[in-house]
């Protein structure tokens, strides 16, 4: 308690230091008077009385200093003095201050921005309550896409009952596509994206409605009145944030649907579960309605009971899995999920894959910070030698070494704080821009912001930077020999030569760091170019897609044949009309576009073979298409395309991709062969054609198997109209939509998406990291160039006299220039060699992020080394040019 009291006393004394000082002065004055009086009383003459009194006090100023020290916070007093002094000196040298603060702002800003991204993806918990309890339950990854990553409704019911590790398990319908909701407010229908979730979805995630309520079990029963939850963003955008929206009903997909609530802004389905997409509305999934028999459609999300470890849940999952049934109607499907129930922390599922990229990114900005520090060190060193006499003088007047180092560190801290403030502003701009880049497929991106942790990080790196760049020059100066510095009038003195060596080391390390950054960026860039050059199996340019609404329902249709026939008529008409539009070169329909959603229907095998021979094959992804689609996508085809004659009654035909054809018929042409179900003679499919492999899930992975069915023989889950054109795709948007409207007034205003956008979206995560690393490398190169320029031009200035003498003795301008350049390049080459060696050693870190690029790719290394040396040459050439234009007479007269 007493220490606290004393501390407060000290604070008080510090705050009220002026009255304290005044009081002390009064006391000292009284003291002096009394001493003089006493001395006078002893019979001394007036002058001597005063002198002796002063001697016995022992220095007024010293008494004041001691007094301040005793009453507390002397350090703050010193700090204030140092700060005042620093601000004054920095103010007097605005060009130095500006450059230093700018360098620091760039480096610190980049660090804060990257930290925010890292924080968002790795450090911060997911935006759900007790998010660490949430797990994503899925089979290990396979090639058959979403259908092998999801579960059936029967499996869901079973799992929910049998598992003991979870408070509850929920999930959502994984196959809803974008723009699947059409809202009619009177005019033309408005499209939006909705997603079906199991009714307990929000309870499990711990999300409450901002207005109204979330779903209850009643909302998902058979015959329940249709209800919808609006996301915050859609409520604001489409309904102008109507405060009385809850309870209102709207025509959605032809049904009067009641809005029961609005979700909070912090809940962003797309950001968490489908990066790069937006979801506008959430609807309840009726598990006991039609989806019952749709097969694997649900993703599982569980909330572990408190105290249940992940290992326990995994063990339980492995134990339950063999008992789960795909469909109770087919007992032989019980056991299909063996080894396919594996819970992983939801956070790992969402951002685990990005960990390596983030580490690389972090390392890159760390290197930037180091380069900036080296630059600052250099600048401060140059400044320090200019000020060495000032410091020597202060030392001679009694300032201790510690006091001088302290003054210099204060200066560094002021600089880095200013840099941090500007850096923070820079980062804030960058971060808010990034948070609004909805097209980047990076999870949680919309939640990106600068939070308290980022502020703490800012303080940390600012202090770190200040110590790193302030310490070397500080110690350098403080250790200097006073006499030497006071005498050191010009060139050739030994202390300055030592400075020069330090500066050379700094430049070399700077170049080495920049080299590592450049190599990393070069490798990522090359990988990205390789990704862009991947043969996707379709031509993304000059093609676009639009979602088409159609009604193929036929009352009393027993086996779907009538619907199929009706669909054929509708699609044929649409394709004929759209195909005749000017500029349209080809048109076709598909239900799922590549690089988007997908599904599998099991594996057909060559007729006559037993399906048990192919037990562990991943089923091919299924696409239901119309005639003309393959051509419209620009996919190569062997054999024939579907025709409108391939109807419900004619022979069932399919197209399969090369990989699948090669697997089943390694040495024969698959065209004309027949696929069967591997059990009996039913469900035979004739292979009408073989198409090239399409990258259906991602650009930088391997293509799996694909099988195409005709829209008139199988049921599509929607229709995307794909158009190939010679014109820019955007120019056709209006005419296509108008045509679709003429054919079907119910056609909503759907987005006309260039196929190129799908590819861009698929590579946007890679592009994001590549761009960041490349811009950091550019920044690093710039800083390194600045550093080289600074050091060389400083040394030229210092050697003016020497150069003057040499020129007077007959050295030509060319020789002088060459010598300066050679010195520059020597430093740069040492730096490049060290940097390249470090890159070669550290390349493993980046290897997993590369695509068809060796981490030791010679071309990248060589081109980056050349680029770096060229930049070094240019930065050295300016001072070299200046050196060669030194006028010997002027230079010699200068001293």
């Amino acid at each position, binding site marked *: 308690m*007493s220490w606290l*009291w*004393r501390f407060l*006393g*000290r604070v008080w*004394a510090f705050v009220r230091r002026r009255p*304290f000082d005044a*009081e*002390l002065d*009064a*006391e*000292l004055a*009284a*003291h002096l*008077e*009394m*001493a003089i*009086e*006493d001395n006078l009383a002893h019979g001394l003459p007036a002058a001597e009385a005063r002198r002796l009194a002063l*001697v*016995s*006090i*022992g*220095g*007024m100023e*010293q*008494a004041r200093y*001691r*007094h301040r*020290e*005793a*009453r*507390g916070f002397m350090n703050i007093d010193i700090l204030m003095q140092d700060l005042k002094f620093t601000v004054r000196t920095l103010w007097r040298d605005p060009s130095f201050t500006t450059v230093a603060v700018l360098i620091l702002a760039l480096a610190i800003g980049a660090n804060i921005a990257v930290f925010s991204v890292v924080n968002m993806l790795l450090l911060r918990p997911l935006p759900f309550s007790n998010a660490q309890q949430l797990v994503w339950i899925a089979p290990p990854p396979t090639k058959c896409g979403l259908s092998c990553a999801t579960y059936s409704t029967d499996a869901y019911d079973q799992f929910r009952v049998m598992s003991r590790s979870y408070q509850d398990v929920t999930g959502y319908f994984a196959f809803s596509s974008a723009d699947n909701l059409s809202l009619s407010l009177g005019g033309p229908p408005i499209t939006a994206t909705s997603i079906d979730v199991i009714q307990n979805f929000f309870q499990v995630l711990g999300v409450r409605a901002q207005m109204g309520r979330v779903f209850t079990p009643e909302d998902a029963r058979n015959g329940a009145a249709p209800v919808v939850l609006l996301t915050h963003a859609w409520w604001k955008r489409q309904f102008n944030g109507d405060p009385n929206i809850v309870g209102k009903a709207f025509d959605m997909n032809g049904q009067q649907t009641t809005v029961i609530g609005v979700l909070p802004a912090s809940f962003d389905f797309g950001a968490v579960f489908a990066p790069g997409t937006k979801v506008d509305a959430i609807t309840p999934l009726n598990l006991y309605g039609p989806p019952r028999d749709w097969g694997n459609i649900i993703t599982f999300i569980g909330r572990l009971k408190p105290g249940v470890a992940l290992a326990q849940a995994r063990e339980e999952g492995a134990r339950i899995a063999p008992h789960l049934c795909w469909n109770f109607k087919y007992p032989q499907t019980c056991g299909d999920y063996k080894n396919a129930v594996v819970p992983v922390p939801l956070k790992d599922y969402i951002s685990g894959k990005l960990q390596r990229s983030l580490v690389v990114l972090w390392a890159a900005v760390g290197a930037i910070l180091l380069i900036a520090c080296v630059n600052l060190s250099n600048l401060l060193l140059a400044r320090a030698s200019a000020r060495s006499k000032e410091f020597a003088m202060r030392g001679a007047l009694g300032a201790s070494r510690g006091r001088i180092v302290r003054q210099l560190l204060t200066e560094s801290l002021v600089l880095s704080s200013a840099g941090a403030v500007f850096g923070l502003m820079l980062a804030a701009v960058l971060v808010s821009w990034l948070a609004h880049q909805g097209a980047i497929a990076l999870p949680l991106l919309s939640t990106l912001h600068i939070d308290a942790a980022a502020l703490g990080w800012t303080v940390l790196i600012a202090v770190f930077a200040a110590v790193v760049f302030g310490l070397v020059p500080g110690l350098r100066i403080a250790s200097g020999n006073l006499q030497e510095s006071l005498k050191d009038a010009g060139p050739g003195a030994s202390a300055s030569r030592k400075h020069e060596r330090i500066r050379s080391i700094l430049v070399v390390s700077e170049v080495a760091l920049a080299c590592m950054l450049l190599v990393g960026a070069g490798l990522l860039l090359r990988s990205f170019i390789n990704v862009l050059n991947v043969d996707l199996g379709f031509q993304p340019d000059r093609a676009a897609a639009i979602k088409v609404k159609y009604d193929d329902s036929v009352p009393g249709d027993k086996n779907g044949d009538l619907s199929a026939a009706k669909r054929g008529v509708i699609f044929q008409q649409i394709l004929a009309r759209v195909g005749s539009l000017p500029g349209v070169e080809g048109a076709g329909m598909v239900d799922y576009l590549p690089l988007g959603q997908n599904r599998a229907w099991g594996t057909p095998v060559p007729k006559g073979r037993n399906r048990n021979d192919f037990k562990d094959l991943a089923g091919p992804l299924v696409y239901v298409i119309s005639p003309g689609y393959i051509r419209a996508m620009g996919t190569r085809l062997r054999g024939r395309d579907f025709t409108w004659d391939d109807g419900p009654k004619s022979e069932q035909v399919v197209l399969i991709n090369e990989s699948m054809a090669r697997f089943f018929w390694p040495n024969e042409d698959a065209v004309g062969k027949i696929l069967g179900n591997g059990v009996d003679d039913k469900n035979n499919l004739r292979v009408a054609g073989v198409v090239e492999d399409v990258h259906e899930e991602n650009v930088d992975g391997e293509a799996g198997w694909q099988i195409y069915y005709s829209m008139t023989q199988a049921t599509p889950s929607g229709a995307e109209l794909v158009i190939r054109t010679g014109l820019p795709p955007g120019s056709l948007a209006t005419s296509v939509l108008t045509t679709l409207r003429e054919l079907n007034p119910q056609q909503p205003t759907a987005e006309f998406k260039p196929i190129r956008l799908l590819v861009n979206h698929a590579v946007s995560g890679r592009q994001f990291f590549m761009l960041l690393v490349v811009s950091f490398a550019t920044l690093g190169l710039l800083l390194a160039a600045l550093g080289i320029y600074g050091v060389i031009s400083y040394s030229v200035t210092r050697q003016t006299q020497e150069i003057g003498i040499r020129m007077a003795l007959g050295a030509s301008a060319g020789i002088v220039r060459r010598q300066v350049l050679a010195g520059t390049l020597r430093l740069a080459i040492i730096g490049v060699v060290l940097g390249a060696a470090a890159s070669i050693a550290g390349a493993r870190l980046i290897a997993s992020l590369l695509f068809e690029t060796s981490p030791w790719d010679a071309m990248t290394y060589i081109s980056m080394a050349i680029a770096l040396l060229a930049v070094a040459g240019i930065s050295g050439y300016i001072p070299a040019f200046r050196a060669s234009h030194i006028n010997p007479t002027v230079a010699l007269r200068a001293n």
Partner: protein
Amino acid sequence: MSPEKLDLLQGTLDLMVLQTLTVMGSLHGYGIARRIEQVSGNEVLLNQGTIYASLVRLEQREWIASRWGTSDNNRKAKFYSITAAGRRQLTADARYWERLKDVMQRVMTMDKSAEGGADA
């Protein structure tokens, strides 16, 4: 200021001030300094100015209290007096010094004969 004067050990000045105030009652800074010089027979090297650092430290610890008053020859001065806490502190410190003095005494007067009784 002859070099033979004693340098004050850390903390001893505080104790001297407390003792002086206990004996003399209320006193100003100059008076305290003079009193210590007189009592020590001018043996200690005391820069009178340093007494104020000691006074402010003691006051912050509430071992002494101060108020402005008038001196004998009608001069305004700040008068210090010891508090109850200060008296307690003085007792404790005095006991400490007593022990330290004894120990120093023994150490400084030790001779060869004490060697055998090292375990005593």
